[in-house]
């Protein structure tokens, strides 16, 4: 299918819509979370010193809080921070930009697979307004960036496979870029490649000679990845995230035996392999649960969910059913249909191998094939309604569907900007609000105390202090230390200058004289601040009829 002026118009239209949705109130609406702050500060550190926060020169993995972040996002932030400085907007600009481009790649993929411009347009539109996709491309997540790159790779790969002149070199390079962006792509990309080989084996075999060049390039590009796989950092990341690294506590088996299990029954009915396998299947299927997709979403994680709805619009269920029916009935090549089906099936595997029962960010790959089907569904629904002879029924059905769709889109934006933000502003899995304000407030007292202790219960205060103070990286690198980084938990920066980051235990800490304490009210309860030994200097960030942080001085 040749590129026409119409395609250009569609691209402009889709990109404008995506960009408006993804850039509107980008930096002043959602609070920065510690991952974003860490990406930003490490990029700032690279810009200033050529080293990460721990002083490692141009690393291929960033230790950060013990999660060993992948390098592409950090390095891509360097020129942006050089241009606009270290700010929330700088950190979020690149993910939002790539998120706005993603529907364009999907447009071309759909056009190639389904051979209809109008379906490609609807699919791109579905992705542009997809709550699931917006969620992870409006915030600084490496998953959103990686998936856009992967979509570009998938498009070029399909082009290479389907077209006579196609080359495999470019998709190989693009895929490798994605592999250096997000952990999930290291699982998803091999799976989508296997899918491609499985579906298009004849076409690929026919291009045997062309593959030789790509194979050599692939081997060359694979070396650093293979090296990083066996590195301590990636080993830790793997152990902390996946079910393969999970070791059942001994108490679990003791309890089973106390309830009446014997050694053979534990081995038969409760073996770790069986339970991990079942857990994998459970997690995999959870991503197709209507509850997750259309009703509630992943409510456990504030950064993933949108209050009052699932990861997609409720009306999408109708479109997906119609889209599936269209694909089943249409005369499109079975290979293309198979490719879309396997794309859907392999997408949640990245998430299913982790310990979370369901995880929207790790399963972001599902958004594209689901958008293709949604787009096909829009097309098919319009076609069916258009064919109805009774114009009253025709208008009625069209109006009901259009009204429902508009309602759910309006509800989504209201929920995103109003209802959800109040509910997910706080806590380790929330948006970590209040840190910017508390860092600003701290500056007034910083010079007056020998020691300032900041509580870590809301996770990662050290990185917010570094980020918002724009603390010189060369000074921090000499003081950097990560505490509490264990196989099952992430660590915390220990401190710098007169800052100490740790859990505050007020019954003991109240006896530390001439110290400034900063923490949430549950750690520094107002009723326990006695005027003879301490006083509240300031309360920061109003929230839920109270404040998120108390700043307390001891005498």
């Amino acid at each position, binding site marked *: 299918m040749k590129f026409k002026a119409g395609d250009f118009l569609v691209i402009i239209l889709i990109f404008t819509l995506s960009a408006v949705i993804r850039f509107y109130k980008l930096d002043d609406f959602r609070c920065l979370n510690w991952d974003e702050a860490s990406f930003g500060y490490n990029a700032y550190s690279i810009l200033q010193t050529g080293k990460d926060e721990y002083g490692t020169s141009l690393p291929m993995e960033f230790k950060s809080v013990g999660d060993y972040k992948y390098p592409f996002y950090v390095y891509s932030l360097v020129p942006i921070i050089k241009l606009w400085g270290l700010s929330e907007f700088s950190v979020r600009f690149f993910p939002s930009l790539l998120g706005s481009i993603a529907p364009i790649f999907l447009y071309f993929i759909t056009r190639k697979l389904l051979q209809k411009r109008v379906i490609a347009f609807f699919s791109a539109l579905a992705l542009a307004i997809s709550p699931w996709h917006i969620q992870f491309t409006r915030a600084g997540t490496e998953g959103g960036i990686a998936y856009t790159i992967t979509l570009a790779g998938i498009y070029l790969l399909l082009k290479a496979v389907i077209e006579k002149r196609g080359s495999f070199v470019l998709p190989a390079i693009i895929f490798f870029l994605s592999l250096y962006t997000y952990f999930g792509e290291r699982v998803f990309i091999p799976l989508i490649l296997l899918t491609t080989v499985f579906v298009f084996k004849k076409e690929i075999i026919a291009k045997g000679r062309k593959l030789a060049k790509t194979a050599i390039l692939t081997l060359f590009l694979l070396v650093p990845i293979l090296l990083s796989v066996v590195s301590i950092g990636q080993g830790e990341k793997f152990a902390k995230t996946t079910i393969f690294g999970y070791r059942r506590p001994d108490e679990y088996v003791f309890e*089973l035996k106390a*309830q*009446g*299990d014997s050694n053979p*029954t534990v081995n038969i*009915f409760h073996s770790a392999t069986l339970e991990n396998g*079942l857990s994998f*299947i*459970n997690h995999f*299927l*959870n991503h*197709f*649960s*209507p*509850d997750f997709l*259309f*009703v*509630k979403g992943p409510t456990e994680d504030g950064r993933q969910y949108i209050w*009052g709805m699932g990861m997609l619009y*409720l009306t999408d269920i109708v479109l997906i059913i119609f889209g599936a029916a269209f694909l089943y009935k249409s005369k499109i090549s079975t290979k293309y249909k198979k490719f879309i089906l396997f794309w859907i099936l392999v997408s949640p595997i990245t998430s299913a191998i982790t310990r979370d*029962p369901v995880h929207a960010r790790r399963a972001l790959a599902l958004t594209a094939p689901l958008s293709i089907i949604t787009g096909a569904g829009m097309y098919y629904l319009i076609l069916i309604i258009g064919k109805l002879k009774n114009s009253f029924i025709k208008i009625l059905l069209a109006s009901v569907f259009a009204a429902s769709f508009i*309602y759910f889109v*309006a*509800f989504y934006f*209201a929920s995103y900007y*109003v*209802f959800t933000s109040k509910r997910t502003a706080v806590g380790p899995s929330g948006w970590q609000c209040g840190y910017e304000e508390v860092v600003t407030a701290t500056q007034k007292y910083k010079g007056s105390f020998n020691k300032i202790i900041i509580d870590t219960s809301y996770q990662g205060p050290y990185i917010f202090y570094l980020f918002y103070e724009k603390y010189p990286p060369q000074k921090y690198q000499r003081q950097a230390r990560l505490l509490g980084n264990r196989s099952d938990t992430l660590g915390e920066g220990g401190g710098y200058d007169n800052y100490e980051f740790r859990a505050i235990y007020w019954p003991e800490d109240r006896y530390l004289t001439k110290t400034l304490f900063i923490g949430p009210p549950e750690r520094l309860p107002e009723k326990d601040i006695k005027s003879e030994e301490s006083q509240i200097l300031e309360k920061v960030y109003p929230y839920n009829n109270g404040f998120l942080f108390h700043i307390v001085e001891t005498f």
Partner: protein
Amino acid sequence: MISKLLVNKPVFFAKEVFQRYFESFDPSFLFFKGDPETTKSSHLAGAIYLSFLPFFLYGAYKNKPLILLLIVLAVPAAFFAPHFETLTRIPFLIGLTYLTALGTQKAYEKDKRIFSILVAFLFFEILRFFHNYTVHYPWFLAELLNKT
């Protein structure tokens, strides 16, 4: 004003109904956990066996009009307050089992090897269920009684 248009009693009620309706199709409920109420489920198994899934999918694929029956059978549970409630979902589960049976028959006719593997897994699941039901479930019930 806009908030009231978007979130109001009828909308809230409709969403609650949809939520309960879709709970019938929840994989965790169907294959892994079952009813959240301990007296109605051991929490160590779902409302049906996991090995039913491939047979069910095959049965549904071969008998597409019957999927409509399943869609209708899930309706009653949507109007009952408890979430993931099993008793109101019995008609739905019967419909699901019927489609599974149809799929099992077709699978037997098509590929006896795959059929045998899945049936072997089904037997294992039945054994596992009875093991959990007789060994571990009483402990959960006892814990529940202790709490109340």
